[in-house]
């Protein structure tokens, strides 16, 4: 991703933070506001970052993943169920139960990745359609099993939902997290930390390793990759399954790290925003992360403006309407799509099925 795009993102985030700081300055010390905005931004960005990385993994190898939303939702559910089952039925202590939940969530994501790969690679199904199928399926299945497993006398827990084992604990950076006011920024939960680590790791894998070179080759020109002995289908399968697993981790964030409960449809379209973040980030890990932070900052902006609604002059009061400021991420994405902030270039073969004996 070009520097212009990063600069644009930095300016947007800067403006959002500045506005809130100015508005709230009379009530709360600026540093507190900035630290709080940063914390919100990071929290909101976590599932978006993971979703976007899932997209990067899949699409760099040439498979469009429109099913991130469904993968996250299904993983949020299965991980949550797994953690409760481990703690309530199997009697594990909270932390191991949560970790079991995370593993199950990641496995669920990977399994849906496998389904996407099977549809897209083996059956050459239109990939956008395949993603849509996964989304619909995830909504139906989580709703169905949520009912089956948790509700009514015949369910696994006999109608009484046992207590969830809580959420993943915070991990602090020893010295930094003790600093007053800004300290909490350095105290994060494991999935949030993993998201940032995965950004770097994904970058490393895609751009510095043999596998990454091959995966990108497959995403750019699968036939060329095939002619040097690369197994296109295998590369795509592996990448899509990894992508699914990452989306699964993003799903785990909702029920194992953020709040210990599952709700039907609780991902609330964040999978689609992830996809927008990935495009915004020009299919690069760091770019996607930066874009996820923009979306996070936009949400922090919206929450904070409502908090300081008394400080907003009446003529600007429409800004308090969360339905107005809530539009910021969507409008930014639309703006991006019109090409005014530079063009994005997807991998050349992104979304195109590859047939071994086909012509192109």
């Amino acid at each position: 991703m070009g520097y212009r795009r990063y600069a644009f993102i930095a300016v947007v985030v800067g403006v959002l933070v500045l506005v809130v700081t100015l508005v709230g300055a009379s009530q709360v010390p600026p540093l507190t506001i900035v630290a709080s905005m940063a914390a919100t931004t990071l929290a909101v960005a976590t599932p978006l970052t993971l979703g976007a990385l899932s997209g990067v993994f899949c699409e760099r190898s040439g498979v469009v993943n429109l099913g991130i939303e469904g993968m996250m939702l299904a993983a949020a559910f299965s991980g949550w169920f797994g953690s409760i089952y481990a703690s309530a039925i199997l009697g594990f202590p909270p932390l191991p139960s949560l970790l079991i939940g995370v593993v199950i969530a990641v496995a669920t994501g990977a399994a849906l990745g496998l389904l996407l790969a099977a549809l897209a690679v083996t059956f050459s199904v239109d990939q956008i359609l395949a993603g849509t199928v996964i989304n619909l399926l995830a909504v139906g299945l989580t709703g169905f099993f949520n009912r089956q497993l948790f509700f009514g006398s015949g369910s696994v827990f006999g109608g009484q939902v046992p207590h969830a084992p809580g959420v993943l604990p915070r991990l602090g950076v020893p010295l930094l997290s003790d600093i007053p006011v800004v300290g909490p920024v350095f105290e994060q939960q494991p999935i949030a930390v993993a998201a940032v680590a995965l950004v770097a790791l994904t970058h490393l894998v895609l751009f510095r390793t043999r596998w990454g070179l091959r995966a990108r080759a497959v995403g750019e020109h699968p036939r060329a990759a095939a002619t040097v002995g690369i197994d296109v289908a295998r590369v795509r399968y592996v990448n899509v399954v990894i992508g699914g697993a990452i989306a699964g981790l993003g799903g785990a964030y909702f029920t194992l790290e953020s709040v210990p409960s599952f709700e039907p449809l609780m991902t609330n379209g964040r999978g689609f925003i992830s996809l927008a973040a990935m495009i915004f980030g020009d299919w690069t890990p760091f770019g996607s992360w930066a874009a996820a932070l923009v979306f996070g900052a936009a949400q922090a902006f919206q929450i904070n403006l409502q908090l300081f609604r008394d400080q907003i002059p009446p003529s600007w009061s429409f800004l308090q309407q969360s339905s107005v400021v809530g539009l910021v991420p969507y409008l930014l994405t639309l703006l991006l799509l019109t090409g005014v902030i530079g063009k994005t270039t997807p991998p050349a073969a992104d979304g195109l099925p590859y047939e071994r004996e086909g012509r192109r």
Partner: protein
Amino acid sequence: MREKLIRRLESLLRRLRPLLLPALSVFTAMVLGGVLIAVAGGNPLEAYAGMLEGALGSPRAVSETLVWATPYILAGLSVSLALKGGLFNIGAEGQLALGALSAAWAGHWLPQLVGGGLPAALHVPVTLLLGALAGGLWAAVPGWIKARAGGHEVISTIMLNYVALNAVSFLLNGPMKDPEASNVLSRTPLIDESARIPALVDGFRLHWGFPLALLAAALVGWALRRTTFGFEIRTAGQSPDAARYAGVRVSRTVIATMALSGSFAGLAGAIEVSALHHRHELGFSQGYGFDAIAIALLGKTHPGGTVLAALLFSVMRSGATRMQYLTQVPIDVISIIQALILLFVAADALVRRIYRVRGEGERLVLTRGWGG
């Protein structure tokens, strides 16, 4: 004489052949759905029988099913038409909501604006037209973005869905909220009597919107095959490059296709308001856009197929209530079955393998990657 008959029969079979795989897909999905119903402690046969009874068991049931079918046909048509033009319109949801919103406006505020009531012969068409227009304009935006910068319509329509839903929420909570003192809901006032589409048969909810939707499907089918504009849409959809080289203004066609597509979704919303709810109430249209995608794909983007698929979905949705009443099976089963139908229609190689149907699969190519 006999030869002629045989030839007729053969041609009929040939014409029915495209229905074979979708039928098998539906069947397979129902079988799997039946397994889930059994898991949920229900009796699949009883459940499906209940569904059929609920959807088609009485004149009233049929009427209700067709009430469901009306927006499904139009929204499905919206998605189908766009797909014919090589565009994947995920934005039917937002377009429909805005169509409903402007119909609600036209039904209530327009007469005030022009000072006095309007005759129904004028008011109804104007209401529907404004709904279609709103949906069309909203859909033209992603068309323009695509034509201008190649920004993919899948992302832009998803974003515009959010924008539309937020805007509707804002308006129904604010400027367009029913000012009636007793009103506690986010909804517009009732539209005037003159703006309401009448019922088709007295005592039933089935309304003239249904034949209108069928007419629209017929019209789209005809226009796509028989008009120069339809030719342009198809050509730009099949091969935008070749179309451009042949002198078709592809950008304009893309925008026009999206606008037309959106206007059908908008019309669907307007009809719901004008014929059924008589007002726009927050959240009445949730999920139609996504059902519409499934319907269009199940109908293989043919207008006729879309109508059939819409009817199938209506039967499921409308019959679900009775199914649940009789067997207490979670309604989510319906969503799962619909997803499975879509899955099998998309991956028809799978269905071919299961039932050993021979022949080449015509691949459903909808999108050409993000690049457009």
